[in-house]
């Protein structure tokens, strides 16, 4: 559309203009106490002085309950490495919620997240996201990335655990003839299997990529209790750098298998040397102990039940105190000698707000238990509900 083109070119010009920081600073003389971005955001929602944002450009349904959301990030985003994740902020009934999602697009291309509907936030993302919507963003991060030097790889994924690995496969397989990737992906049924067709096509097209689709509805869970399944699907698995991403049980089982193999290899190695043998033990473990890289999705702290208190950690002040479930965090901090901001002490003035790093708090007025990392807590009317980490 010509209009779109024109709009894009205007945006391009505006972008260039903003890159001239000096000009922006000069403009702020006229916009103070606002930043020039606050005014520009009237015309383009990507602009914000405080908050990285992106505009959704495309939404592609993957399975019945998953979708890939492509977005164009604003200034401040850094290009992602294959396998990394980003925190995405979404508004639910006016309230900002943050979740972490793996990026499924290959490195070097516009970012996209693939989301499976497993709860309130992901549900809204999958069902209600439309091109033009604004997403709130934090730059990509994570160490679940490809090795620096080329080596044979084994990918083990289950369910939505395919997402970061998909980014790796898309980055590596079509562009690197020297790549050697085996993927074992487990999903309940073919219909539930995200990226199934694209993976099969890649495997057909590129001899350096092999994929096994494992459907638990037909074959049950992948059995990691012994090496039998892996020996069958990927006989040289011990010689590959392995990456695993999926639900907790899946990862625990894989980790246990790798540990057992490593212990066995180490034992073999030591008996070998005791016997005076000079040859290196077989398998990659002795040479390279880091062989299984896991991406684990866990909540950092669980909410306490009933009127439990919990261990309160004041991170910047480096203090830890056991608190009961009825004492406001403000009092807990003051008693522990932390310099706490305070005001009315009755929950009306918002002078005592402190960012929550992790954990949950109970509102002493309503009894409601809530808490999201980064949320600002009214410490004068909030008590610990389980372990709490505060950014002070």
């Amino acid at each position: 559309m010509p209009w779109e083109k024109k709009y894009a070119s205007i945006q391009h010009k505006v972008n260039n203009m903003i890159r001239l920081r000096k000009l922006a600073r000069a403009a702020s003389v006229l916009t103070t106490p606002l930043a020039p971005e606050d005014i520009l955001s009237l015309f383009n929602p990507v602009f914000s002085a405080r908050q990285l944002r992106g505009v959704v450009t495309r939404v592609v349904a993957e399975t019945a309950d998953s979708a890939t959301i492509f977005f164009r990030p604003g200034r401040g985003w850094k290009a992602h490495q294959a396998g990394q994740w980003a925190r995405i902020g979404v508004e639910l009934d006016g309230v900002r919620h943050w979740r972490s999602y793996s990026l499924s697009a290959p490195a070097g291309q516009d970012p996209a997240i693939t989301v499976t509907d497993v709860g309130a936030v992901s549900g809204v993302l999958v069902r209600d996201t439309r091109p033009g919507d604004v997403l709130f963003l934090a730059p990509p991060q994570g160490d679940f990335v490809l090795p620096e030097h080329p080596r044979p790889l084994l990918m083990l994924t289950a369910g939505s655990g395919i997402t970061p690995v998909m980014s790796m496969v898309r980055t590596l397989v079509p562009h690197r003839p020297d790549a050697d990737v085996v993927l074992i992906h487990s999903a309940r049924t073919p219909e539930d299997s995200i990226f199934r067709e694209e993976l099969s096509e890649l495997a057909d097209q590129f001899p350096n990529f092999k994929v096994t689709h494992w459907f638990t509805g037909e074959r049950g869970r992948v059995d990691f209790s012994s090496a039998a399944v892996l020996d069958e699907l990927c006989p040289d698995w011990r010689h590959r750098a392995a990456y695993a991403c999926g639900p907790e049980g899946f990862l625990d089982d894989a980790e246990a298998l790798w540990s057992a193999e490593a212990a066995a290899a180490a034992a073999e190695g030591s008996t070998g040397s005791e016997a005076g043998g000079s040859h290196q033990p077989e398998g990659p473990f002795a040479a390279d102990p880091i062989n299984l890289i896991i991406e684990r999705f866990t909540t950092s702290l669980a909410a306490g039940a009933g009127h439990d208190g919990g261990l309160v950690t004041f991170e910047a002040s480096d203090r830890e105190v056991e608190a009961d479930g009825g004492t406001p965090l403000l009092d807990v901090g003051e008693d522990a000698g932390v310099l706490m901001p305070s005001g009315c002490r009755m929950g009306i003035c918002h002078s005592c707000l402190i960012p929550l790093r992790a954990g949950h708090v109970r509102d002493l007025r309503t009894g409601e238990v809530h808490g999201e990392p980064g949320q600002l807590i009214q410490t004068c009317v909030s008590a610990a509900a389980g372990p709490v980490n505060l950014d002070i």
Partner: protein
Amino acid sequence: MAIVTNHEAETTEDAVVPSSRDDAALKADGAAAAAAGAQAAKTRRGALATSGSPLVRPPAAAHLSDEQVAELGRELDAIKDDILAKRGASDAAYIRRMIKIQRALEISGRATLLVSRNKGAWFAGTTLLSLAKILENMEIGHNVLHGQWDWMRDPDIHSTTWEWDFVTPARAWQHTHNDLHHRWTNVVGKDNDVGYNLLRMDPQQEWKPFNLGNPLYNAILAPVFEWGIAIYDLELQDFKDGNKSKEALVKDLKALGVKALKQFTKDYAATPAVAMLTGSGKQALYGTLTANAVRNVWAHAVIFCGHFPEGTDTFTEEMVEGETRGDWYVRQMIGSANISGSKLMHLMTGNLSHQIEHHLFPDIPSNRYAEVAPKVQEICKRYGLPYTTGPMWKQVGSTWAKVFKLALPGGGKA
């Protein structure tokens, strides 16, 4: 053997407390947990008692029993809970719409002033900029700084990040206003908003010859109101009395200096300088001066209507000694006054025309006060408490009458 990279999951939202664990805890603790909860609520410093009574109940509420006051408190709590339950996407859309309108007014006003050599442009630009400043200070700034929109968790519209188009730095104002004024509303000796350390606004305040100038000071204060508030927020009296450290004062002075310089530069240097390109420099300066004065006079009038009109009560320190939650609510209601009028009127006062409701619930979204008002008025009627309200001209007249009357010694209620 393994590198484990932890990050919070897409599935965090599913990490609800398992009900079995909840049940177990409840069974284990049983009544003890409930008792501990109740005890903890009582020991919370600053928390108000749910039962009992203050040493002296204010005269306007003297006819109420302890139980009636407690019941009134519960009714008002229920009104607040109802609003908190309803608060959502439509409220978020409201404040964002207001911010957009305000910014559009601001840039169009300032842009028009750039060509204000033309008389029509001068009037249009000055009007737009005055409206922008009023909207920014009243409906947006004041309310955002109260934390009314903190629930959205939007860092761009948050009490901890917002700075307003007003000389006094937001943080300084939040301390004297949100904390001191709202907690101690109209308690003479605790709430310095009773006269702002400048005017004699209550008969309980000892008369001094200085107070003869009451009307003069108030007339001078109105057009420079933002500077009056800025000085007030420095808490010079507290410093003199030794209740504020020198370091704290120096810090506040520095913050004010930086803020004032920025505000001054924007309105009285940068805008006229750009306007000089069209030969409108002087006119633009008059425009920004006028807009600031218009905003100051308006803010002064609205704010004086909040607690000074005839019918609002002030309180002694005995009346807050042992004050219960219900008594706190009573004090907010009988110490505040509303302004009646149209929707536009409410908007331009930043919904401070619903001062009574605002003082009951300082941190509910301002767009909800109109909905709460009839319920509060009904409660006042049922409990036989005054609910002071009236049109702007009448309330302004009433505050000026008080300013004149209390310039002279005495001035007890007729």
